[in-house]
């Protein structure tokens, strides 16, 4: 094992979330394809998505996209702004904080109807 510092862990997560989202995207295209067959098929499938565990997964998905997106912005900053590289640590901190600041409240709103109904 290499005890990499922050950059390495952020990169691993970026990769995992990227692949994760891609996987979900395939699924999502497939299910949306059902729309073409008519309402019954589609609405039946949606039932699956309405399961509480699925709702939590949905929140995780939102998290993945948020994280991947925010971290992507950090990478783009590093690429195009020479000084950003010098502030690597600060940028990492900002990314992580920004992610949680958005993701946790989002979770509250998304899961409220599931658990407090």
């Amino acid at each position: 094992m290499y005890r990499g510092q922050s950059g390495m862990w952020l990169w691993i997560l970026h990769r995992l979330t990227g692949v994760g989202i891609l996987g979900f995207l395939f699924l999502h295209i497939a299910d949306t394809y059902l729309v073409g067959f008519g309402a019954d098929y589609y609405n039946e499938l949606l039932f699956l998505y309405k399961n509480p565990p699925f709702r939590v997964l949905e929140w995780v998905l939102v998290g993945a996209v948020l994280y991947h997106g925010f971290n992507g912005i950090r990478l783009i900053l590093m690429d195009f702004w020479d000084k950003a590289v010098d502030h690597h640590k600060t940028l990492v901190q900002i990314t992580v904080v920004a992610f949680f600041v958005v993701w946790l409240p989002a979770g509250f709103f998304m899961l409220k109807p599931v658990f407090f109904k």
Partner: protein
Amino acid sequence: MSTETKTTQHTHPDPVARTTRRWTRSGGRPRPTGNFELFSWYFFRISGILLLFFALIHLLIMHLLNNVDVIDYNFIVQRWASPLWRTFDIMLLVLALTHGLNGARVLIYDYVHSRGWRTFAVTTLYVVGILFIVLGAQVILTFQPQIQSVAK
């Protein structure tokens, strides 16, 4: 103090701009390398920024403001009644897929080393990728709401 302190060095704010100007001046400008990797890298950034816009709005609308309690066939029907949303979704689909497939390609290059397997994996990736773009696009573009559902 000695005079040496006067030779303080000024760092140019942007070394890249400074040196590229030099190449242009001296005519030693790098040849276009026609490289796919540069394009791929750049595409990650461009599509990433666009995706940030599309994906976040998509998430906001579909998962936060609304959610699966509200979303059903009819919801889709109403949404795709507007060509604007159809365009939006088609953009999202194409960008996310090309961006994601590009990412998967990078992964293959990292972890699949034998020439044969690599070609195989990348080919499969492209085939599946194109298939899904076509499937997705077909739904979004050709979708016709079915009357009885609207009536329900």
